[in-house]
């Protein structure tokens, strides 16, 4: 029997019994749905985090306390006690490295920011004027501060878009207003464009000299960023920075990481997360497959007589095997497509809030896996049908 005929026959069968077809495929639908959604979620997270790093510009070296990103302790204990805190001398020393575009020592703190009639938790980012190109911050309203304000220790600030909305309702109203942070009154001279990073959008950017005093009494920095004009200079500069810092600090007290390194670490972490997510999703695919096998066994029993009739009029074992296999495959591919369709819908919806991504590989894998499940879990029932003795089958009541 031609394969096309088999599929058409199976398809006609399914149309006759829509409820059963739907329920049988449901397991695969849910399985594919969860696999595709989980992959989309994993990819979305990865893209989101990579984007955060890429926003900082490509040719960037980050100097942080602790052993940093590359050793795998990422995050944990980075701001713990006993960690290095950089100071202005470090920034000045690093400034001496040739081929540098800028050095940005950054003081970072979570704190309460208050306007005349509102109070919000936000972040202080105190640095020099190169902070703005570093973080891609541009003024939506007003202007950003520069060298002059640093030298004069001016009490000025550029405010993040969300913080401006939170404190002043209309962001453009923020210009010229005053906010209070840790007892310091700061005049807002600019509102940043919204860039989608919750920390930056809720930050107050101030000259690092202004922060000295009650905001940053120890005059320390939590990290130092080095901007390099081109990518091929990154390794040289990074080596030079290590040498300079080793004069003051122990090797394991600080880390110098290139952005590409961080990105590849992020990639690695999300690679693992994705595998775990796929594994979790695959459990439901497996359960769906077993559901199909179960139904196919029932179908074979229910249709024993049909098998006998077909054998009597000339169907070979192979014909019967293919007939049942094509049914189980069609069932699971149908389920898979349903799952994919649902997943696409959900992804398109969720996209409004979070950058989930549907990728081609996930789609191909979903279809491939569901047909593989149909074949794998269909083989055993189909073999059972094919191996029925024609005469016993035709007598079956």
């Amino acid at each position, binding site marked *: 029997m031609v394969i096309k005929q088999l599929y058409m026959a199976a398809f006609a069968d399914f149309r006759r019994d829509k409820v059963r077809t739907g329920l049988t495929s449901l397991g695969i639908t849910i399985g594919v749905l969860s696999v595709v959604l989980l992959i989309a979620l994993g990819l979305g997270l990865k893209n989101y985090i990579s984007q955060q790093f890429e926003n900082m510009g490509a040719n960037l070296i980050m100097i942080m306390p602790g052993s940093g990103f590359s050793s795998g302790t990422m995050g944990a204990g980075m701001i713990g006690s006993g960690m290095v805190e950089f100071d202005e001398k470090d920034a000045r020393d690093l400034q001496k490295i040739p081929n540098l575009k800028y050095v940005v020592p950054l003081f970072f703190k979570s704190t309460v920011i208050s306007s005349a009639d509102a109070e919000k938790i936000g972040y202080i980012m105190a640095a020099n004027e190169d902070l703005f190109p570093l973080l891609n911050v541009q003024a939506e309203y007003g202007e950003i501060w520069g060298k002059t304000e640093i030298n004069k220790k001016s009490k000025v600030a550029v405010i993040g878009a969300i913080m401006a909305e939170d404190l002043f309702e209309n962001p453009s109203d923020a210009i010229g207003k005053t906010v209070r942070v840790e007892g310091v009154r700061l005049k807002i001279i600019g509102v940043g464009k919204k860039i989608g990073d919750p920390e930056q959008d809720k930050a107050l950017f101030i000259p690092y000299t202004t922060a000295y005093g009650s905001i940053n009494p120890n005059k320390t920095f939590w990290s130092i960023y080095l901007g390099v004009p081109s990518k091929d200079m990154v390794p040289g500069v990074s080596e030079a920075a290590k040498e300079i810092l080793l004069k003051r600090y122990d090797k394991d007290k600080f880390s110098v990481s290139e952005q590409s390194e961080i990105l590849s670490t992020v990639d690695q972490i999300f690679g693992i997360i994705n595998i775990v997510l796929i594994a979790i999703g695959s459990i439901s695919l497996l359960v769906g497959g077993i559901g199909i096998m179960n139904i196919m066994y029932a179908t074979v029993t229910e249709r024993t007589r049909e098998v006998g009739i077909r054998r009597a*009029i000339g169907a070979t074992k192979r014909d019967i095997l293919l007939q049942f296999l094509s049914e189980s495959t069609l069932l699971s591919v149908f389920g898979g497509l349903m799952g994919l369709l649902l997943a696409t819908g959900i992804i398109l919806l969720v996209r409004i809030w979070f950058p989930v991504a549907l990728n081609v590989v996930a789609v191909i894998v979903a279809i491939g896996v569901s047909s593989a499940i149909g074949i794998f879990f269909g083989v055993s029932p189909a073999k059972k049908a094919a191996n029925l003795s024609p005469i016993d089958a035709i007598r079956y009541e």
Partner: protein
Amino acid sequence: MKKTPSIISLSNISKEYVMGDESIFSALSEVNLEIHKGEYSAIVGPSGSGKSTLMHIIGLLDKPTRGKVIINGHDTARLDDDQTSKVRNQFVGFVFQQFNLLNKLTIKENVLLPVAYSREKLDFDPEKRALGLLEKFDILSKKDSYPNKISGGQQQRVAIARALIMNPQLILADEPTGNLDTKTGNEILKLFEDLNKEGITVLLVTHEPDIAARTNRQIKVLDGKIVEKYND
């Protein structure tokens, strides 16, 4: 015996079943039988006599425990599943007591089903032939109906059309009138007689001596053996 060549030749056929208590039940023992081209015969015997088993062995639906089934001079013991299926597809046409049509296929699709299992190029247009057979059996108007929507007599005609679609040399009919009333049964028997007149070999299996008497040769089976006469 007629002088036409034999298309089926059974020699020393025995069929035994191992029962639940491991005793052996002998359904057929040492049966020898020749069926010649163009015959219209009946295998007749009471229920449990082994007549159906005999028919199943002739039609290669079942295998004998011992003995040879020779079809057109070829020993069928050596055939693999594909070849056996091909014999069932092309050489024999089965007609059953229960009609055995597939309820999810239309009448026309049922008649055409054996064509789907044929691997060879056909020397006829199957669609045309199917419609021709349905017309001949006076059920053309039902071609798009489903089997459970037509009468038993009509279903049996469809089954006969299906048995004929591949131009078989032999029709094996197992109690073809068993599920029909006398009048309809007679019509079906008349059909077989007509087909035989067209040259098709027809072998009926029946437990009714009256029906067997309408054929040209009665092969009497009792307790798994072919006998000359019943000792009723």
